[in-house]
């Protein structure tokens, strides 16, 4: 339910960058969303049409690059997907692991014309 304010922020960032380069309209936004960022991209999409109306980004396509949550084993350096059962390394069985990916949440680029 917090995606509305986040969608607004995405729009603000896109409009600011579009203004810097000078363009008629924004056609596409490329977003990177990690599994651990707890952002639901369907909800962002849902709010997008609403917040972008009457701006130069109206009708722009949202592209989501989803980054899965991954862990890295501190013993053998193996990287493996986050699962909900156990955080043990599937290769060596060690449980000393750290999060290696999935925190991302950024606007990578916009496409304008």
């Amino acid at each position, binding site marked *: 339910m917090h995606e509305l304010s*986040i969608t607004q*922020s995405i729009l603000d*960032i896109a409009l600011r960058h*579009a203004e810097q380069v000078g363009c008629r309209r924004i056609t596409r936004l490329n977003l990177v969303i990690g599994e651990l960022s707890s952002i639901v991209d369907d909800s962002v999409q849902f709010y997008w049409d609403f917040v972008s109306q009457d701006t130069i980004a109206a009708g722009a396509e949202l592209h989501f690059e989803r980054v899965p949550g991954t862990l890295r084993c501190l013993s053998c350096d193996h990287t493996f997907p986050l699962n909900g059962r156990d*955080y043990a390394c599937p290769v060596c069985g060690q449980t000393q692991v750290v999060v290696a990916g999935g925190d991302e949440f*950024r606007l990578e680029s*916009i496409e*304008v*014309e």
Partner: protein
Amino acid sequence: MAKRVPVVEQIMNANDQLAVANRARLDAAGVFGVNLMASPGAGKTSLITRTVEALKDDFRIGAVDGDIATTLDADRIAALGVPAVQINTGGACHLDASMFQSALPQLPLDELDLLVVENVGNLVCPASFKLGVHCSVLVASVPEGDDKPYKYPVMYRGVDVLVLNKMDVLAAFEFDVDYFRRGVEALNPGLLFFPLSCKTGEGVDEWLMWLRGEIVKFRENRE
């Protein structure tokens, strides 16, 4: 002809911007802010009452209490003689920076050393909404089960301190503390951990000693 414009900007939502403003306000008033998050019934209010009772002679304490409805928790805390503001979120499952901001003028900030915020009981949404405090504490409890770090990784990942309450009933539950801590350690390496019981008082002194130290450190950094 479409062209691509690189942006590469972290998306910081309006909430985070307000949180920064709240933090500045606490800093200016010299108030150390703590946000307590937990599932319903983990013992947030019990930990606050324990803490207020133990520290109120040495520090000036205020509280902000978030709940969907009622003033039960704020009443419990106000009964200890400290200013407490209740925020009824009216259905929202978390406190956000704007609710916290609206609570601040209702407290005598310049006359406080410590502000304890009790978030709405929920292990999901509060993790995504910074308030602008100095420290986030997750209060877990034994009856919830030892698999919670695996089921709610975002919450366990985003906090500065972990309290495990209700240690007095550990024997009655199949709670594997090692399994629990392994999950926590993977998500949040080196996370400060205080196993305790608000009921018996076991382990509470270690928590209090840490909190005292943090308030003193905060004051010294200000001077």
